[in-house]
Structures are given as structure tokens and as C-alpha cells.
């Protein structure tokens, strides 16, 4: 990474990612207008958002070619993030009986 040719290649990738993100944004809005059942709408919207987030993180934030140290930091963070998200679901499916 670093030569002008490499940077030019990266810039072309950024533009492709930008176009893809725009298309995915339109898909997100279209899905919401289909009035699908709530669980399916939630699942589809989150799948599209995850793809968009993955593109931003991988290419704009250069995670696709990052050092191992960063992957470790993010791996631990993501594990805790999902644990935090599981707590309300756990509470929902196993409520305290009074």
C-alpha cells in the first residue's frame, strides 16, 4: 500500500463501495414499503444494514487489510456487544415470574 498506482486502485474501490451503499440504501427503503410481516422486515433490514456496515468497516475503515492487534481488540468488543444485546432477549423469553 502507498504507491500512486495502489492508491488509484483503492480510490476506484471506494467509488464502487459508495455506489453499492447507495443501492443498498434504496433497497432498505423499498423493503420497508413492502409491508412484510414484522419479523421478516426486521431480519431483512438488519441483514442489509449489516452488509452496508461491513462495507464501510472493511473498505473505508481499511479493516480488510488491518493488523492482527486491531482484529483482537474488535473481536473482544464484538463479543461483549452481542452479549449486551442478548440480555434483553434473555429477559424477554425468560421473564421473572412474580
Amino acid at each position, binding site marked *: 500500500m*502507498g504507491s*500512486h498506482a495502489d*492508491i488509484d486502485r*483503492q*480510490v476506484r474501490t*471506494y*467509488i464502487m*463501495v*459508495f455506489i453499492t*451503499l*447507495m443501492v443498498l*440504501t434504496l433497497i*432498505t*427503503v423499498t*423493503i*420497508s414499503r413492502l409491508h412484510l410481516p*414484522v419479523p421478516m*422486515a*426486521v431480519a431483512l*433490514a*438488519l441483514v*442489509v*444494514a449489516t452488509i*452496508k*456496515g461491513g462495507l*464501510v*468497516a472493511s*473498505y*473505508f*475503515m481499511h479493516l480488510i487489510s488491518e*493488523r*492482527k*492487534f*486491531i482484529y483482537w*481488540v*474488535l473481536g*473482544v*468488543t*464484538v463479543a*461483549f*456487544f452481542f452479549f*449486551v*444485546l442478548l*440480555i*434483553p*432477549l434473555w*429477559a*424477554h423469553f425468560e421473564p421473572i415470574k412474580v
Partner: protein
Amino acid sequence: MEIPYTVAERPDTGLNNGKIGIWLFLASEVMLFGALFATYLMMRTGAAVWPRGDTILNVPLATVNTIVLISSSVTMVMAWASLKRHDFGKFRLFMGITILCGFGFLGIKAFEYAHKFHEGLLPSKNTFLAIYFTLTGLHGLHVIGGMAVNAYLWGPGAKLWKTDPEHFTNRVENSGLFWHFVDLVWIFLFPVLYLL
């Protein structure tokens, strides 16, 4: 005393200190927003009825804001790429557009907020509005923070380019990482709050 490893990579991590610092900060930010997303999930799954966001909020405006923020992310990364090409003029142009996009995003958000307040739709009205204002308000503060750093790098902070261009490029990259994170959070906020 000079801060070590602002340009050179630390032998043990293979990264400069600025990059490690920004990623650790972003990790804490993931947990901050993660806690609020979990709160949203708990409130939504626990509520007997929950309104669809598009019945209360303005989806076309939020779609425009999504496009503005994604565009600002690409101009931010182009600003960094311009420095890598040693083209300071292009850096100024792309960074300037990024800052303007930030103003555009905040302007649209302010319009949305004003409209909601005018209709009496305040955070105290119901749980949906409380979590909507909390999440978008916190996100808005992050946009303001990112803009402040970008404006510094566009203006007075750009002096560093003349004396230490690599260090300046790294600063722009780190500021960009924060800006992309702000974009990433919005990518999830948009469907969760406005469309579902």
C-alpha cells in the same frame, strides 16, 4: 517530550500509537451505542404495542440524511487518499465537502427535531420518542465532535502537513476512522428507528 510512534510503527503492535488509540476509543463507543441498542430492544420487546417509525418520523428526510452521511464518508476517505497522493489541494476540497455534508446532516436533523417539537412530540410523550431522541441526539453529538476535529484538520491543524506530512496523513486517517464509525452507527439507526 515528544509522543513516540506517531508515524513509525511500534515493534510490538505493528501500528502507530494514534491508530491504536482511536481503535480503543471506537471499541468503547461500540459498547456505548450497544448499551443503547440493547435498551431499545428491551423496551420494544417488552411493550404491548410499538409504533412503526414511519408513522411518526419523516422517512424521506432520513433517507436524504443517509445519502448525505454516506457521501461524506466517501469524501473523507478521498481526502485521506489525496494526502497519500501528495495532493494537498484535493485534500482541502474533499475535507471541505465532508464538513459541509456534516452541516447538511445536522441542518436536516434540526428541521426534523423542530417539526417534532412543534407537534408536541417530545421525549416525554412516549417510550418510542424517548429512545428516538436519545439515540439520534447522541449520534448528533458525535457528528458535531467529528466535524470539529475535521474542521481543525482542514484549518489550523493543516500546518503540520508542511513540517511532517506523514504524521498529518495519519491524523486525517484517524479522524476518518471516527467519521466512518459515525456513518456506520447511522446505517443501523436508520432502519431500526425509521423503517421498522
